[in-house]
């Protein structure tokens, strides 16, 4: 058998070599504030661990460089990522002096570079394998399950990120709840309002240009400004509308953040509904009218099912966008993971930033994979050649 070289594999192997040999694997700090000291793999891990990790990295690099089957590459990438995940936990345990609760150990650039290289390997293999939507969701669940297992097993407890979490466990889950409520609640509201608006825009051409223009303009207002601008009207409502304050409407906090996210969400939902409805074949619509469907029957029975994949694409855009934007809510006291991000930025504490950013990214990523799978499932393959 002739051995051939994979170009991408060379880049991955080079990255991995740099990450493993030249960049620090972990950072050790005597306490939370002081500057860190870099530790290479051999310094950060007990000798046996270091040997295993280095051996695995060399094997992985070899598999990456040569043209190997995609399944093997995928399996290797995932196995290596799992080994790294356990390894960084071991490094934390190894580097922290016994009985010392001040010392902090966190992953350093080498770890992240290795993770990035392995991510590339896995992404490339997945792209080539083109797994079905169901398999992709199963993969995602497996990865999330693995992360959950490692978290509960206590392997990472020595890591600085989890120490930050441990001292904030209560607030973390409260902010997580707020973050989800903001992102999902505003999406639900935008869907409930946006789809009927989209139908209306589709039927009334005059309305379409005007409304889409306004929604487009809203999108250009920077998020922090929109959040801020809404403080005033909501504050006024809280004071002057009886009962508004009782249901949680206030000038600052969750209410303006919710309204801002709702306003940002409207454009993709409305625009995609309009595009989806416009994409319904003219003949199908004409035939539906011609054989005696009422406008409502046509909407429910023909137009809506045919436009659904496009509408769902709009919902995906909104969901991923909202999960990211909800971090901004923290700036106006709206809560969410942004609280940790901005606190961390204020204190120059990277672990705190990560405590906010990592769940946000994970959440956005999960939402994107699940909705992409859903969209692919509901999009029928009608583009095949018409012949029988």
């Amino acid at each position, binding site marked *: 058998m002739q051995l051939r070289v*994979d*170009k*991408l594999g060379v880049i991955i192997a080079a990255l991995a070599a740099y990450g493993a040999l030249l960049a620090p694997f972990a950072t050790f700090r005597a306490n939370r504030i002081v500057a860190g000291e870099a530790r290479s793999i051999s310094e950060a891990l007990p000798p046996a661990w270091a040997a295993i990790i280095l051996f695995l990295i060399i094997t992985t690099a070899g598999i990456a460089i040569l043209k190997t089957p995609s399944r093997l590459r995928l399996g290797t990438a995932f196995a290596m990522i799992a080994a790294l995940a356990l390894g960084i936990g071991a490094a934390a345990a190894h580097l922290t002096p016994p009985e010392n609760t001040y010392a902090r150990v966190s992953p350093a650039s080498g770890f992240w570079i290795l993770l990035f290289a392995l991510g*590339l390997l896995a*992404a*490339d293999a*997945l*792209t*080539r394998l083109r797994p079905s939507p169901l398999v992709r969701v199963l993969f995602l669940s497996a990865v999330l399950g693995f992360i959950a297992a490692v978290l509960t097993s206590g392997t990472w407890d020595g890591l600085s990120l989890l120490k930050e979490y441990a001292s904030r466990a209560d607030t973390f889950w409260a902010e997580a709840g707020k973050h989800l409520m903001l992102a999902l609640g505003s999406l639900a509201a935008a869907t409930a309002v946006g789809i009927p608006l989209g139908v209306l825009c589709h039927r009334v051409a005059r309305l379409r240009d005007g409304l889409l223009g306004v929604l487009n*303009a809203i999108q*250009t*207002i*920077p*998020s*922090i*400004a*929109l959040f*801020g*601008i809404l*403080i*005033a009207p909501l504050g006024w409502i809280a004071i002057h509308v009886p009962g508004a304050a009782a249901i949680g409407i206030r000038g600052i906090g969750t209410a303006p953040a919710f309204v801002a996210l709702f306003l940002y969400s409207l454009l993709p939902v409305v625009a995609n509904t309009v595009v989806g409805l416009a994409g319904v074949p003219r003949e199908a619509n004409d035939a539906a009218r011609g054989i005696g469907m009422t406008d409502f029957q046509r909407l429910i029975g023909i137009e809506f099912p045919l436009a659904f994949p496009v509408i769902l694409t709009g919902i995906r855009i909104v969901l*991923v966008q909202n*999960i*990211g*934007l909800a*971090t*901004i809510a923290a*700036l*106006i006291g709206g809560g969410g993971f*942004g609280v940790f*991000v*901005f606190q*961390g*930025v204020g204190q*120059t504490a*990277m672990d705190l*930033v*990560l405590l*906010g*950013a990592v769940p*946000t*990214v994970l959440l*956005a*990523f999960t*939402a*994107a994979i699940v909705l992409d799978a859903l969209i692919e499932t509901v999009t029928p393959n009608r583009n095949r050649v018409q012949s029988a």
Partner: protein
Amino acid sequence: MLRLPTLFRLLAFAVLIAFLVQPQWFEPLLRPLVQENAPAIYNQGSLLQLTLLHLRTVAIATAGATVVALALAILVTRRSGAEFLPLSRSLVNIGQTFPPVAVLALAVPIFGFGEKPTLIALFLYGLLPIFENALTGLTTLPPSIMEAARGTGMTGRQRLMKIELPLAMPVILAGIRLSVVISLATATIGSTVAARTLGEVIIAGLQSNNLAFVVQGGLIVAVLAVLIHDALQAAERSLGSRMGR
């Protein structure tokens, strides 16, 4: 002849310039938004200077992103880079799920405070739409035209410079436009890490509970975004119509 929308835009531009140069003229308009003794016009720096810094940050980040994204797109659409094409598509999709705030926040520990992390975040985030559109533009050229180009004996380089890039240009420009509009808004967040952008005005407003600051900062960015968006779109259209699309 000037059409009504064009007139509107010119008017908006004139008002914007007037506001940046002589903000006091607009003081009565913003006065109702603030309490008795609070200033209605941003007083911790020049709005004009902040606007120019904001635009400079966006321009540098977008220029960098355009060069890199275009180079990468050309690379992966050549035969020698074809191996990277499917992966690069996936990476664009994955990259776009990263929230801009997260990118910015993660850049801080690596690059410190100030303009640098903002530039890096805008650059990284701006890469994606340009790269995606450049890929679309370069991979959906009419096969008959490519066939004809080969048939007339053009070299690979000539095809790229004379046929592929000009034909893909409107789509690429659309990507740049998208990138600029996103960057204009995202740059404001940069002020949370001490970058000097118009976000400073908004954040000052949020901190001192001064709605007038929030509104003026937000509106300047929004008007800039709309004007730049429309200008780039007009450029695309004129380019597109010249090619009879």
